[in-house]
């Protein structure tokens, strides 16, 4: 038995829309099977993972909270992936953005510095993430070094930088030796949108990023240039588009947005620096970007859907004693299913038994 692919002459829009849904259902079935193998009830798990968060106002708010960094990072990654460039180091750019932004918060701590602190922190976060993202881009354009491996190695380095700072020079002297910085002043804190809520202004940044990206990709020369560089690099060269400039630009954009996500999370949610400031948002955002088919609106929807798996994973850990790793495993299998479903969009698939149709 083997699978036979033949390219479709034209891609139907129906398939294009159905494919991510199909992938999601398949991933759920596989995850259910794994849970069943572990001797638990898949139906009970489904209830904890999906039904409960969707019927609980507190959990609905948490979905928005966790979808915020996912959407911001994934929007940035969509620029890279559209140009066929592989920035898989968003997690590191997120961390460096948080570190550089927090530097201002810690320098102005207790000084009554005023309203400029927060905007400066956000700008520094964007700048830090963008510069960190430019390292693999520069190594690629200048020396031809593969961006996949360098961007990933930089994740480990970024995490070690953060670890060093919160255990060493930036540790709160009054923090009972815990590896964490001082709690940020109110002037260095990103406020919630609604007084009682937990959804902070990062959600607004994410929404703006989605809208701007929709316009840039659909209506500008730069968007056209990205698509052309990704789909037909030779044509892009003949059109006079420099691949190097494109590479640097998309890495700066995605690094900057990841950095913004990082500083927003620290200034909005956590309120201080600590060794762990991300449950793997930078990697999960890759799944989000593909689940959203690299389309800004699609990514927004995908971020909300994948955010649900984080919330569900947390309650499943408490209520069913299912380890948090299940969430990561699910996100991996989901990405695999999404990519496989893409094959259904562009190819006709037949299962052929051996000695069958020639």
């Amino acid at each position, binding site marked *: 038995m083997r699978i036979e692919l033949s390219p479709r002459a034209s891609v139907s829009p129906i398939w294009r829309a159905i494919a991510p849904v199909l992938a999601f259902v398949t991933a759920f079935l596989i995850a259910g099977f794994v849970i069943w193998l572990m001797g638990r009830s898949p139906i009970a798990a489904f209830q904890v993972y999906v039904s409960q968060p969707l019927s609980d106002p507190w959990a609905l708010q948490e979905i928005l909270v966790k979808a915020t960094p996912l959407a911001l990072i994934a929007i940035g990654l969509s620029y890279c992936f559209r140009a066929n460039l592989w920035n898989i180091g968003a997690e590191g750019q997120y961390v460096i953005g948080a570190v550089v932004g927090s530097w201002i918060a810690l320098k102005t701590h207790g000084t009554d510095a005023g309203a400029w602190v927060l905007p400066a922190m956000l700008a520094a976060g964007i700048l830090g993430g963008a510069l960190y993202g430019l390292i693999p881009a520069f190594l690629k354009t200048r020396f031809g070094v593969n961006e996949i491996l360098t961007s990933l190695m930089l994740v480990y380095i970024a995490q070690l930088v953060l670890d060093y700072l919160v255990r060493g020079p930036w540790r709160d002297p009054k923090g009972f030796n815990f590896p964490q910085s001082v709690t940020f002043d109110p002037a260095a804190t990103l406020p919630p949108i609604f007084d009682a809520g937990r959804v902070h202004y990062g959600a607004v940044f994410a929404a703006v990023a989605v809208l701007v990206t929709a316009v840039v990709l659909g209506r500008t020369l730069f968007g056209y240039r990205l698509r052309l560089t990704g789909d037909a690099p030779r044509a892009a060269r003949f059109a006079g588009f420099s691949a190097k400039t494109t590479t640097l630009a998309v890495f700066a954009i995605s690094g900057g947005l990841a950095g913004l996500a990082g500083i927003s999370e620290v200034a909005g949610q956590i309120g201080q620096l600590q060794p762990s400031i991300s449950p793997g948002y930078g990697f999960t955002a890759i799944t989000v970007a593909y689940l959203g088919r690299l389309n800004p609106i699609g990514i927004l929807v995908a971020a909300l859907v994948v955010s649900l798996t984080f919330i569900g994973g947390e309650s499943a850990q408490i209520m069913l004693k299912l380890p948090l790793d299940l969430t990561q495993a699910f996100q991996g299998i989901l*990405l695999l299913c999404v990519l496989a479903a893409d094959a259904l969009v562009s190819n006709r698939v037949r299962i052929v038994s051996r000695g069958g149709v020639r």
Partner: protein
Amino acid sequence: MTTFEAILLTIVTASTPLLIASLGELVAERSGVLNLGVEGMMAMGAACSFAAAVTFNSTAIGVGAGVLAGAVMAALFALVVLGFAANQVGSGLAVTIFGLGLSGLIGAPFVGARRDPVAPLHLPGLTDLPVIGRLFFGQDLFVYGSLVLTLAVALYLNRTRAGLILRSIGENHASAHGLGLPVLKTRFLAILFGGACAGLAGAYLSLVYTRFWSPGMTAGRGWIALALVVFAAWRPKWVLIGAYVFGAATVLQLHAQAAQFGVPSQLLSAVPYLATILALLLLSLRHGRAIGTPGSLGVPFVPDR
């Protein structure tokens, strides 16, 4: 035993998993498939081998389970990238995320358990020689196995017909297909071999190197194995050299941390990752772009008929 001897011995132990995983990836990449799932396959190998070894109280069964786990993950990867011709970078990454998560699930009940050391080779007379005795004649079987594997992969690729077919498929799959060579079948077997090697490398990590399981214990070794293949310009001999250089860097930074030079331990921990970036950079500086890259590397193959 002097400290110097001890350092040499630990370098061998640190290098062996890198060597085994890199050899597997080398064969897969020579067939034209970029497998970024090594890290996940390695984690699965480490978790499954440790779980099986503790459950059945047998290192042999543990190693078998590790190899099998790596191969099963590889089969999943192959289904998606060969069967559905999906994007190899994304799919490999997905396998890594999946493998890291699933290995955490499988290993969770075994956190805290320990295994006894695996008995090293002992040849009376030879092993007891000063300095070189333990180093050359007193290693565990994996170490000798990894060296034999290096030789076998080199001979297979360069001296056999099957190796020639594999390389030609990796160089240009369309032409190879035109000649009637089995592109997908060869790639499938190459991916399986790569996964089995990654699983074996993971088994070595949890059964020999640390002798316990902890989540995320592969700590990027799968990615370093990928970098080694590029660094070695897709040649087995250079994978061997590269693996030992990296193993040495890892061990020396650990000793430097223990010696407390007043350098932050995080800086020393970053050495393997910084060294990887530096190695890739130096290679590109010398050759312009990475030489020896298989022509069809990472390109999905859909036969036209």
